[in-house]
């Protein structure tokens, strides 16, 4: 278990090797050499995940470096080393920066998700990216991304987490802009980078604030300070909200959600890994990791988390309902479900949030990869130009249907149980308004999933798509594996006999709790999900219900939603009218005052002075001799004056 740090190191190690030697490796084998290395590294990571899990299960509070953490009451193993000692002038003693890693249930659960999904996506990419000239670069950044993401999960110090957090952002930028020949991809990459960066400023300030209060970057120390009450109420709440700002940026919560749909310009496997299953849940993970901060002092920050999560879930699920690009439907669906996770955390549903994070991760990766399979075969993303693909792509249709139904909450599939957990947590933790809106979100979720499923794979097959073929096995096998999880993953939340006992006894906060099932919520959400799928089936497959009259009646509302509530337009206006004007002023100040006067001014003065002064250097011998003579005369007169 103390070898868990190797999990990211494998991928960190292969990334530069692929960049430097990938081309040469490719020449040696039929498959791209970079892909082999990257898949081997993440496969090793997946193997070590099991070692870490089994090691943790063997461990007890007495094992070396292991203890029951004060905040979560979960068995935590923390391996810590001193990074470096920095003596600062004017301070007593030195500042010791430590870094290390946690092996606790939260980390282990995330490790399993990230290593497994990354492994599946990388194998799938072998088929999807086949023949791309920059395939080695693709796998190098993929490996670097996986390594950084795993470091975020393992980090036990805020500083290490921040470093990995930014690395993840860079990899996301590189992969969104992977096809940088396309202007849209370039713009989307920049947008994603800049928007998440705004949130990251909050994260950095929050981390520094904690450092000022605690004196170290260690999470354990920070949480201990909160538990002991040595950190003031205002500071704790401010730090929690600042950390949440970073989480909002990464997890694309309103108002930072605008980057995620645009990020779909990247290759589809990238969307599946980064913008569905792993990176975007880093924000949720951060809130969960820093839960002791959020929960302290009557959990005021958690109310903010809950409201932001609910608004995000509701708003983006309506956009997903009208989006026409299959990847964008999935993207808005992702934002919406991230909002649900935040809502769950905000309603003290720690277990439910992590459970949904995992179930959603598997299902959404499956959906994206299924959509990628469609795009790979048809080169078409608009659902209005797709349809009837079940006749030509049966396997993809099956797995996509499983993913969509799982996410939409059809009973006994994984998404049903995880969503049910969240709804239950919200109904217990927050007032009734929250559960009403959460149920509406769940209904919308089922509706847009049904729409994406039936509009793409059912209905009439367009003529130009009749010769489409199923994707190769290298792509469909990962899909099948993910589909199994999307079906069966929910069962781990049940009360199992034996040591495991159920997910509620594995990832928990304060105390484990068994599987609960509130009948009215379960039946209501199940009926809504089934109803939504039947409704969309009738609209898109049977054609027995037409939406035209509803479209006409709600035309203005529809236009607002179709334009994504004008978020992009408002931001553009703000940038044009406020940011750029201010930036122009700053640029003018910098050019005119700082540069021309402050920097070039002294330089120009010296140069002009030099031009004037150099005239005395005539180059004539007798001029110098004359000056010498005059100097001697002056010395003589001076001598006379002082002796007289």
């Amino acid at each position, binding site marked *: 278990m103390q070898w868990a740090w190797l999990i990211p190191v494998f991928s960190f190690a292969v990334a530069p090797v692929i960049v430097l030697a990938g081309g040469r490796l490719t020449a040696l084998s039929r498959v791209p050499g970079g892909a082999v290395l990257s898949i081997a590294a993440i496969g090793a990571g997946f193997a070590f995940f099991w070692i870490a899990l089994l090691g943790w299960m063997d461990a007890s509070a007495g094992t070396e470096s292991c203890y029951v953490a004060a905040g979560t009451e979960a068995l935590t193993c923390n391996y810590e080393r001193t990074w470096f000692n920095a003596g600062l002038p004017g301070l007593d003693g030195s500042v010791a920066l430590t870094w290390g890693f946690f092996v606790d249930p939260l980390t282990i659960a995330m490790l399993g998700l990230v290593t497994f999904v990354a492994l599946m996506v990388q194998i799938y990419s072998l088929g999807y990216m086949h023949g791309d000239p920059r395939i080695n670069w693709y796998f190098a950044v993929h490996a670097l991304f996986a390594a950084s993401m795993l470091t975020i999960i393992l980090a036990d110090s805020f500083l290490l987490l921040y470093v990995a957090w930014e690395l993840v952002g860079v990899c996301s930028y590189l992969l969104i802009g992977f096809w940088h020949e396309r202007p849209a991809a370039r713009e989307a990459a920049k947008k994603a980078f800049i928007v998440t960066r705004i949130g990251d400023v909050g994260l950095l300030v929050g981390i520094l604030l904690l450092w000022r209060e605690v004196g170290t970057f260690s999470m354990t120390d920070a949480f201990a300070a909160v538990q002991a009450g040595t950190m003031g109420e205002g500071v704790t709440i401010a730090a929690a909200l600042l950390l949440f700002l970073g989480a909002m940026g990464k997890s694309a919560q309103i108002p930072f959600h605008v980057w995620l749909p645009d990020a779909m310009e990247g290759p589809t496997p990238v969307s599946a890994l980064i913008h569905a299953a792993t990176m975007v849940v880093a924000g949720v993970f951060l809130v969960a990791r820093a839960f002791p901060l959020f929960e302290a002092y009557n959990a005021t920050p958690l109310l903010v988390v809950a409201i932001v999560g609910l608004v995000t879930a509701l708003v983006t699920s309506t956009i997903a309902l009208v989006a026409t690009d299959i990847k964008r439907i999935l993207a808005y669906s992702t934002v919406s479900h991230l909002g649900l996770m935040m809502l769950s955390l905000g309603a003290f549903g720690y277990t439910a949030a992590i459970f949904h994070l995992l179930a959603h991760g598997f299902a959404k990766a499956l959906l994206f990869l299924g959509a990628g399979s469609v795009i790979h075969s048809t080169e078409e993303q608009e659902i209005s130009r797709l349809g009837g693909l079940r006749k030509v792509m049966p396997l993809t249709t099956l797995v996509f249907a499983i993913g969509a139904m799982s996410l939409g909450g059809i009973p006994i599939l994984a998404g049903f149980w995880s969503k049910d957990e969240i709804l239950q947590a919200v109904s217990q933790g927050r007032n009734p308004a929250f559960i009403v809106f959460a149920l509406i979100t769940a209904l919308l979720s089922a509706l847009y999933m049904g729409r994406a499923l039936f509009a793409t794979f059912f209905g009439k097959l367009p003529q130009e798509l009749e010769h489409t073929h199923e994707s190769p096995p290298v792509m469909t096998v990962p899909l099948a594996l993910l589909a199994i999880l999307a079906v069966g993953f929910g069962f781990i939340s049940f009360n199992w006999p034996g040591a495991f006992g159920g997910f509620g006894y594995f990832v928990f906060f304060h105390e484990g709790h068994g599987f609960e099932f509130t009948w009215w919520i379960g039946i209501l959400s199940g009926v809504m999900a089934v109803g939504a799928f039947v409704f969309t089936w009738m609209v898109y497959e049977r054609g027995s219900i037409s939406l035209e009259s509803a479209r006409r009646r709600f035309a203005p509302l529809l236009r607002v939603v179709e334009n994504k509530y004008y978020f992009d337009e408002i931001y553009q206006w703000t940038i044009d009218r406020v940011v750029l004007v201010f930036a122009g002023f700053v640029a003018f100040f910098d050019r005119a005052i700082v540069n021309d006067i402050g920097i070039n001014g002294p330089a120009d003065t010296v140069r002009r002075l030099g031009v004037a002064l150099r005239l005395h250097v005539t180059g004539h011998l007798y*001029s110098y001799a004359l000056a010498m003579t005059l100097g001697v*005369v002056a010395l*003589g007169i001076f001598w*006379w004056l002082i002796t007289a």
Partner: protein
Amino acid sequence: MAWVLFIALAVVTLGGGLAVVATRNVVHAALALLVSLVAVAGVYLLVYAEFLALVQVLIYGGAIVIVLVFAIMLTRSAEYPRTSDNRQWPLAAVAALGLLAVLVPAFLINAVQDTEAKNAAFTGIAQSLFTTWAVPFEIASLVLLVALIGAIIIARSGPGEN
């Protein structure tokens, strides 16, 4: 008698010097320099420095003026008969007179009265030269050698020159 000689020699010395710095013709300047230097040898005789007077005539009158005439001949500039002063000559005159104005009062104020010139015998000079001044003497010979080699190297045609 000594006064008459001194005044005559002083007039010839200074007149020669003035001719050197005033004449337009370089060859005339060289001749005026010779006159001035020989007169200086006469001044040495006035203070009983016979050996120095001899050396003065031999080296200055014989060697140095000849070398200068060689320089004139080898460079053979077309401008020599009507060479002129540079543009700063009035300033040069002011500076020179300024130095004179500093020097003359200094000599007059610090003048030593009522001393008599005395002869220095050849044997005394030789003894002093090879005992007290032996090291500077050797160094002077080295300086001459180095100057000789340097002059040859500088004046010789380099590669690519004809």
